[in-house]
């Protein structure tokens, strides 16, 4: 099958997806992939136009899980939205909590005590580890390796979720952070349990990598597939491991130094080619870096209060103004934009969802590839529909 590919990447000066002209033999086949396709991580639809097996056009369709999270949050008090942020990216509730808490703390100029900052870092990085492990597991499941690698990943994820459960009372709907600190203190026993889990993690990553990284099938399926150019990635607002896999050095933990990230030694892994394999590899390396951060944080964690003494729980009314707080969530830049009019509810509450914005370039990455690769490219973006549709 020959395809006449026209290089029209910058019509009218903007990064439009390239136009692929079919070779003219036969008709285009229009396929609605999803919303109940097993590879779509939930309810997501891609409207594909196929020329034989090649993708000529791809339009993502959203909104199947839309419940207008932002409107609900504007009708509730600031604190009442905290448990609801768990439901955005339900794989990583604690980073969602953190991003929201960070934005409100910025809005109200609220300090956070030392110990709470350390707890946040430990939980945030544990969240990153379990998110990356399971997203790699899903990716490999979509490659056809049904079950086994995913179960290896989930075995480790389960240990981390057990830690979350023993601390917050819930595996996935943690509702743990508060404006000015955290809800409950970690015990010595919990810290020991966390140390034990962390001590076992490098071995898990080694094992995982020994099985996968130089696996011939994985390399054949992933390398050179779904390439994302770095200039397009920046222009399209792609963030997180996807941006770094394209070789762009941008990690908000390093750029903004939010929380206490400037105290820890860690590196930012970067990719070279921007293909699916690089995204896989960047996630593996990020797990290793996160393990280092948690180890350092567990070593240095000080005593003291976990809530700021001046933090207001009841009658919380920030002064009029606005603030945008963002963190490096496992999937990319998770931001909250809040406008306060001095009332008990936010006047405007906006979530900047990394999953949705990373999908902007899905069409660009998929055009010209096979349908089977679309599943793979889509899996390598790592999205959660709870956050995409909000």
């Amino acid at each position, binding site marked *: 099958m020959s395809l006449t590919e026209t290089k029209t990447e910058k019509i009218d000066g*903007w990064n439009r997806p390239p136009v692929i002209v079919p070779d003219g033999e036969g008709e285009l086949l229009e396929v609605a992939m999803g919303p109940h396709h097993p590879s779509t991580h939930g309810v997501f639809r891609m409207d594909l136009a196929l020329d034989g097996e090649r993708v000529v056009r791809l339009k993502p369709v959203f*909104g199947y899980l839309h419940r207008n999270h932002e409107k609900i949050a504007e009708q509730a008090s600031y604190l009442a939205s905290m448990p609801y942020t768990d439901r955005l990216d339900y794989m990583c509730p604690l980073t969602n909590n953190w991003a929201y808490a960070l934005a409100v703390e910025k809005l109200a100029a609220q300090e956070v005590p030392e110990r709470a900052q350390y707890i946040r870092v430990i939980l945030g990085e544990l969240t990153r580890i379990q998110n990356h492990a399971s997203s790699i597991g899903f990716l490999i499941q979509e490659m056809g390796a049904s079950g086994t690698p995913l179960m290896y990943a989930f075995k480790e994820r389960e240990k981390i979720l057990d830690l979350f459960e023993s601390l917050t009372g819930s595996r996935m709907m943690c509702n743990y952070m508060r404006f000015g600190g955290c809800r409950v203190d970690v015990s010595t026993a919990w810290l020991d349990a966390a140390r034990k889990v962390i001590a076992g993690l490098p071995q898990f990553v080694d094992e995982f990598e020994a099985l996968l990284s130089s696996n011939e099938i994985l390399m054949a399926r992933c390398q050179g597939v779904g390439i994302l150019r770095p200039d397009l990635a920046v222009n399209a607002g792609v963030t997180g491991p996807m941006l770094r896999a394209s070789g762009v050095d941008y990690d908000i933990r390093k750029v903004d130094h939010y929380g206490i990230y400037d105290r820890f030694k860690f590196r930012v892994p970067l990719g070279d080619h921007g293909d699916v394999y690089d995204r896989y590899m960047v996630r593996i390396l990020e797990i290793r870096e996160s393990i280092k951060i948690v180890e350092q944080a567990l070593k240095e964690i000080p005593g003291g209060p976990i809530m700021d003494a001046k933090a207001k729980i009841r009658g919380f009314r920030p002064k009029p103004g606005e603030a945008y707080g963002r963190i490096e969530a496992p999937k990319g830049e998770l931001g909250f934009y809040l406008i306060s009019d001095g009332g008990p509810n936010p006047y405007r509450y906006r979530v900047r969802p990394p999953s949705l914005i990373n999908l902007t370039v899905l069409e660009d990455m998929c055009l010209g590839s096979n349908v089977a690769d679309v599943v793979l490219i889509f899996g390598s973006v790592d999205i959660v529909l709870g956050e995409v549709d909000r």
Partner: protein
Amino acid sequence: MKTVEEIKAAIEAAVPGAGVEFVRNPGPAAEHSLRVAPASAVAVATFLRDDADLALDFLSNVSGVDWPDKEIAEKVKVTRTVTKTVDGVEQQMEETVDETRKRIEPGCLEAVYHLYSVAKKHGPLVIRMKTANRSDQVELPSFTPVWRSAEFQEREVFDLYGIIFAGHPDLRRLLMWEGFKDHPMRKDYVEPDDYEYEHVLARAQEHKNRDQRTEIRDQGPGVA
């Protein structure tokens, strides 16, 4: 990074007649912003992206904000001449009274953009644009040609707030379904009692008006 005032001066030097206005953020975050006139917005955005010092190549976040019409009650001192009877004699007197006057401050829709620089690792710069009103003049220029990341986010703002982004390549609803009429994130949006129920009514109406001559009905009982 330069301060917001310096950026304003730089924009005014580069784009003549840019119409940039400084908007102070009264809160403790103190992230001040620049309001850009829609007419010159794309030129300003292109300058912000391509300027070597600023290099704001990364548009992080696009939010819509709804500012409904506000009824403002003001107390005004009014001096008027009244006729009063003092000691049996009618007199013309000047009297000052407080009068409450109500005026309606027209609302608008606003689009807020948070810009960062990946190359220089600085930010954010907040720029905003507002529409003339909330009903018929809701058009703003699209930033999608400048920053591709606005593509889905402007579609979302169009969907939920009803701002029409001129120059957007594919302005369709993003989250609500096709055929949905309203804009749910607006402050005055009233949601229907029950979406399901409304569908039932429409379907019942359809059923009532249907063509009665169907094959099965005419066959009657006794047909296998």
